[in-house]
């Protein structure tokens, strides 16, 4: 390539977004003043986990001055088409319970919306919510997924006839015969293996809770159509669904994600009940309607993920080489009413990734997702895979102890070395250098030296330990995988428009929430077109001016969308070359031209041929004497579809000091070694890693959605759903490997999505390693000092008795 890579890609370029956010000029959903005096909606939510609705008395609420409407499930069931609809179901053999935005006849979890109050202001709406009287007839709450599998269990969805919403054998093949043959092979490996580790692990219910809650503002005009502003990762999908549900042509529906969103991490990807209700209400009432979720609603209804039991077994030889793996995954799917994801897509995907970065050709893995009276699992960063990562990385440490080897060596011996490959579940790993990333990590730590320090510390009565966790995570998912899984395409798309002054606007249909797209996409376009990032404006998230896109999730930004931006920029560059070559009577070979310093240069000329502003003005405003086949357009929309999924690899290490007397532990160091392909902006990559690791730590140590035996959710405030604060967490050291990805135009991969995955394993392995003389093994998350202490007590009792 002749383009002198001026170096915007890879630069530690501070973010374009920052200035407005730092001065209070961000425009988050609740800040938008896009409609006049919207009516405000508040939901009345179920106070019980499982019950028949006997009656709802809205009369007192409806009479309150300022209240415009109070609606219940009975009012809407014949007015709104329920989910599932064609665009909200994946092509997987599961159960997709029919549900409306408000509970109809029965409630299935503590927090389910049962009525919607519409008022002129939020204070009045809340007054009215207090006045709505709901009478319930209690049904037995189903809170334990394993009990829910018993034949005599009551059912969450009696019409479906089972609590099993989804089950699948992920290994062996598609037919039962193939799966049985595979199972027999794995069984025989286990029967003859030198060493078997058989454990039950539990990754508890927790998630990623963005600081900004959900919300939607909608208005409807029969002429202009439906207009929705919402806090979402996927405006184009939302448009599709609204169109489908309300019989409005798609071109009459405009969904805009605000330019600024206060985080999402997966939570804002599904099609939820509430925005559907907001759209219905604006249509019904003919006035703009606004709903801003409260934190309490958020913690009751969404942000809940993980929650899987893994009955995991490893067969290995005496060296610690893993020969086979069995895993029975049971996911607590909650009420399972959630468009697109239905609770089980996450654990399904997580089960498919169980073998992680380890070479284990013979696996027998199955998943059962069980309905319970809890909120449906909703997507969270490390999509479905955190409990499985935890389970396998813990099991490997247990294996290492059994064969008397360092866990680091056992891990290295079992890492996948041949890439590309298909793992036992059929997931394709495209490229990377797992061992290289791993070696970088262990060299940085200097494991032998650490072991010396550990021995010396123990001699002084101090217990330090080292633990590892790894993760292979997808950066974006190709249509080939996403269509069956979510019924949606996976391609990345972007439109680039150059204007006559030589500046660029990038339009992307994704809806970022802090990932810095305005910066990274500008860096890419600037580099390819020889501009400064300042010359590039990035517009996101509006279905009216952006090409269809599946949204910002699963680390698609750095892989798919970035690739589309690069393709579109290159297409425009090629077009400009054609015109410039024509004007200067040069051969139109792109290799002879350089785009640099806002000008266009030729290999044989010392002076620039023309400025970008000049040539853009010439093409757009003076479209005379254009070369054959050229026209005045300097706009291009590109779709990038990967043939293979791009996998990113990370290896994490935690070093802790633990106190055998109290079970308390302190993280001394946390190191992450990541291979994210070519880095567009290290500042942003490091921020993603740090944030992801801390989310993982916070998940592992503090956060937990707790339901009591009656299905009452006890953790719907931030006092009870405890998140790591600044004093709870360490600094994170980061090592980059940056193996360019071969099948993206820039060599980039996405990253960020899977970062929390390996964290709980690394942390718990470190704690168990520190306390190795006492012989404890952590099997359940979260890990809190009282749990470690209880394990120590039990170990002491065993030793004594």
């Amino acid at each position, binding site marked *: 390539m002749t383009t002198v890579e001026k170096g915007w890609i890879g630069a530690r370029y501070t973010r374009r977004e920052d200035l407005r956010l730092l001065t209070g000029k961000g425009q988050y959903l609740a800040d938008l003043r896009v409609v006049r005096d919207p009516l405000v909606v508040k939901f009345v939510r179920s106070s019980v986990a499982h019950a028949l609705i006997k009656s709802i008395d809205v009369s007192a609420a409806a009479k309150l001055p300022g209240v415009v409407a109070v609606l219940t499930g009975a009012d809407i069931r014949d007015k709104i088409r329920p989910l599932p609809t064609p665009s909200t179901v994946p092509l997987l053999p599961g159960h997709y319970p029919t549900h409306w935005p408000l509970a109809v006849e029965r409630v299935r979890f503590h927090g389910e919306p049962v009525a919607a109050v519409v008022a002129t202001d939020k204070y009045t709406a809340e007054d009215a919510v207090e006045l709505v009287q709901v009478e319930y007839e209690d049904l037995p709450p189903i809170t334990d997924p394993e009990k829910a599998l018993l034949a005599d269990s009551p059912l969450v969805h009696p019409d479906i006839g089972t609590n099993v919403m989804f089950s699948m054998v992920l290994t062996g093949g598609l037919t039962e015969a193939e799966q049985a043959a595979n199972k027999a092979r794995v069984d025989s490996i286990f029967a003859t293996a030198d060493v078997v580790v058989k454990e039950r692990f539990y990754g508890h219910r927790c998630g990623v809770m963005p600081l900004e809650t959900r919300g939607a503002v909608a208005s409807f005009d029969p002429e202009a159509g439906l207009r929705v502003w919402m806090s979402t990762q996927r405006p184009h999908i939302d448009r599709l669904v609204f169109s489908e549900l309300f019989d409005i042509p798609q071109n009459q529906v405009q969904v805009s994600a605000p330019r600024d969103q206060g985080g999402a991490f997966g939570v804002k990807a599904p099609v939820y009940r509430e925005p559907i209700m907001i759209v219905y209400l604006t249509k019904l009432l003919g006035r703009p309607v606004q709903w801003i979720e409260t934190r*309490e609603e958020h913690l009751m209804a969404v942000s809940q993920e993980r929650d899987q039991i893994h009955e995991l077994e490893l067969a290995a030889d005496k060296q610690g080489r893993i020969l086979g793996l069995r895993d029975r995954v049971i996911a607590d799917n909650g009420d399972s009413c959630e468009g697109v994801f239905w609770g089980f897509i996450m654990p399904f995907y997580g089960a498919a990734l169980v073998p992680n970065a380890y070479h284990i050709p013979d696996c027998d893995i199955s998943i059962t997702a069980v309905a319970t009276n809890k909120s449906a699992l909703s997507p969270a960063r490390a999509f479905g895979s955190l409990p499985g990562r935890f389970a396998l990385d813990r099991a490997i440490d247990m294996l290492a102890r059994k064969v008397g080897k360092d866990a680091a060596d056992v891990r290295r011996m079992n890492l996948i070395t041949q890439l590309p490959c298909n793992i036992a579940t059929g997931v394709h790993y495209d490229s990377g250098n797992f061992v290289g990333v791993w070696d970088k990590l262990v060299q940085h730590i200097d494991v032998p030296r650490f072991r010396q320090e550990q021995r010396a510390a123990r001699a002084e009565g101090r217990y330090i330990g080292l633990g590892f966790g790894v993760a292979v995570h997808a950066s974006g998912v190709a249509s080939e995988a996403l269509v069956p899984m979510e019924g949606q395409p996976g391609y990345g798309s972007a439109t680039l428009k150059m204007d006559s002054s030589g500046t660029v606007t990038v339009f992307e249909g994704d809806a970022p929430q802090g990932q810095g797209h305005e910066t990274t996409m500008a860096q890419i376009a600037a580099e390819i077109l020889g501009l400064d990032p300042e010359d590039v404006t990035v517009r996101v998230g509006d279905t009216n001016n952006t090409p269809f896109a599946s949204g910002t999730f699963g680390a698609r930004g750095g892989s798919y969308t970035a690739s589309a931006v690069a393709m579109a920029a290159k297409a425009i560059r090629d077009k400009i070359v054609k015109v410039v070559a024509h004007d200067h009577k040069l051969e139109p070979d792109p290799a002879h031209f350089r785009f640099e310093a806002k000008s266009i240069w030729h290999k044989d000329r010392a002076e620039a041929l023309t400025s970008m502003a000049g040539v853009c003005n010439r093409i757009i405003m003076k479209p005379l004497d254009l070369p054959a086949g050229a026209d005045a357009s300097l706009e291009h929309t590109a779709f990038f579809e990967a043939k293979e999924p791009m996998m990113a690899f990370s290896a994490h290490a935690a070093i802790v000091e633990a106190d055998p007397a109290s079970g308390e532990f302190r993280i001394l160091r946390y190191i992450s070694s990541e291979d994210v392909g070519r880095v567009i902006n290290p500042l942003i990559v490091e921020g993603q890693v740090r944030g992801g690791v801390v989310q993982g730590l916070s998940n592992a140590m503090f956060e937990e959605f707790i339901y009591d035996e009656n299905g009452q959710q006890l953790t719907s405030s931030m006092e009870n759903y405890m998140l790591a604060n600044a004093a709870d967490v360490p600094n994170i050291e980061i090592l980059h490997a940056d193996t360019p990805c071969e099948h993206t135009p820039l060599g980039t991969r996405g990253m960020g999505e899977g970062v929390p995955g390996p964290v709980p394993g690394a942390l718990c392995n470190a704690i168990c390693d520190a306390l190795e003389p006492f012989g404890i093994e952590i099997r359940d998350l979260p890990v809190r000092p009282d749990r470690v202490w209880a394990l120590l007590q039990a170990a002491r009792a065993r030793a004594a008795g």
Partner: protein
Amino acid sequence: MYPASIEQYHRPATVDEARAAYAAAGGEAMYIAGGMSLMQAMKSRVLSCRALIDLSQVSELRGVENSGGRVRIGAMTRYRAVAESRAALGPYQALADAADRVGDRQVRNRGTVGGSLSWNFVVACTPVAALACGASVSILRADGRRESLAIDDFLQGPMTTALSEGDLLLGIEMPVPANPASSAYRKWGVVVDALPTIGVAVFVELASASSCRNARIAVVGLPGGPARTPRAEARLKAADLGDPSSLAACAKAAAEECDTAADPWIGASYKSHLIERLCLEMIGTAVRRARSQMS
């Protein structure tokens, strides 16, 4: 999320005006101090009122003072001011230890000693520290009588105190003992500076470098609210402070006489363990601080 409707807001400048405003509101009034508990209760609609009486401008209720052999803390003294008044607190460092770690900076900028004592939340820092410090609580009754109560009698179980409708808590005071004395408080929570899962406050007045004349130990994190541990106190009074095993026995006694209960996060037996550990540590800190006053 939002409080129920409130009709009136008053911001009196003196205690008498406050009492008058309360009386005028005819029963449905509430005092607000820092609001760090009351706003939670009003926003979640656990409490509502017709008139809100804001004590923030009642300057006579503010301040930490050490004079005439007594340490006085006004009810409206904010955590921040308490934490910054270590010198004036003399032997009652436990109150500063508590104030220094309540919630976060923003909470400490608003929340008050009087608010915390009046609210007496089941797990709170100030009540347990005041209990160990043996504070007396001065109260202005709704009818204008002034009264002083021992903190042990003032705190009457979770969210319950000797305050009745319309009573104003004026402040607390403690005598400066004749002998070297000090106190210490520490809590343990799930995240740093969370509400206490367990907190222990210890006060000691030394008879000599190795013996106590007086000792008080109080524990928070129990279902019944903060409580003293009389058997552990008796042991501490009899203990040889130079003998680690006798201090350990005190701490063990404290753990044994407290009935802990599991909460959704932490099990009961670990709480007992925490009581023992924190108690031992706080005895050590209090004794060390007291000894440092010996010449």
